[in-house]
């Protein structure tokens, strides 16, 4: 499958949005680990109405051509806004509960389409949650 959003250097493939500084922190960690933070657009939703969260995400999707939205909590207002956008945007994928392992897998999956990459990355993120100890 072709990479609709493009995978060249500097071309964002996904939007990351969450509570507080969560998105910026995660993406800065991606940058520190592999230097590919430019594949991701950071959005903070602090102090925004649900309507402005939704319109800001829509604007960023239009500007970047990204086809994936990563959010933190399933109960978050960013997730609610993203689900409204997914409803009327064919080909757009939402992944909630994002973690660092998910994002790292996603930015390295440049051969897959963004939506396929997001699905595979979500599986990797789930597998990264392990409990050690007795």
């Amino acid at each position, binding site marked *: 499958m072709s990479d609709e959003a493009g995978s060249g250097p500097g071309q964002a493939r996904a939007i990351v949005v969450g509570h507080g500084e969560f998105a910026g922190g995660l993406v800065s960690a991606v940058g520190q680990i592999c230097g590919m933070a430019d594949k991701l657009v950071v959005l903070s939703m602090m102090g925004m109405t649900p309507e402005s969260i939704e319109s800001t995400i829509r604007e960023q999707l239009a500007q970047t051509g990204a086809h994936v939205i990563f959010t933190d909590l399933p109960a978050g207002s960013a997730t609610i806004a993203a689900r*409204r956008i997914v409803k009327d945007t064919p080909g757009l994928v939402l992944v909630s509960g994002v973690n660092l392992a998910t994002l790292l897998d996603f930015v390295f999956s440049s051969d897959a389409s963004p939506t396929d990459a997001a699905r595979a990355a979500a599986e990797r993120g789930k597998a990264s949650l392990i409990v050690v100890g007795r």
Partner: protein
Amino acid sequence: MGIHLYRIDDRLIHGQVVVGWGQPLNIGLLVLVDDLVASSDWEKELYRMAVPPEMEVRFVDVATGIRDHAKYAADPRPGLVLTGDISSMYRLVKGVKAIGSVNLGGIHHRAGRAEKLRYIYLTPDEEQQLRELEAAGVEVTAQDVPSARAVPLPEVLQGAAR
């Protein structure tokens, strides 16, 4: 157990509500009082997926919220009643006549609203409705999360705590 919190929050069901308040108050019953959401299966499904499994959610319009308030209050589980705007809570309080306090949790910037707190913006009409509630004996405070200070309405309206 009764209703532990009456909250106005324009984000409706989200992290601060189900986790921030829901966990420490051990909320088992969440009542979202919103005419628009109550009339739309899609909206109800959207917000239902944001509710953790240990919590039951009910979606009702304001008229039903007034009619069934005594049932929510008599439920054995701790309850949280939520509206998305001041006018819905105003109508609920006026209709129920047994609500002693209202929490302002998030009313964000929109045209015509002035900043009062980081998370509270109000139009003159909204200010007036809140003043009327307090004049009727309802304690109105702003508090986004349980660990924050509950800011009394006069202080909110002065914008002094910004």
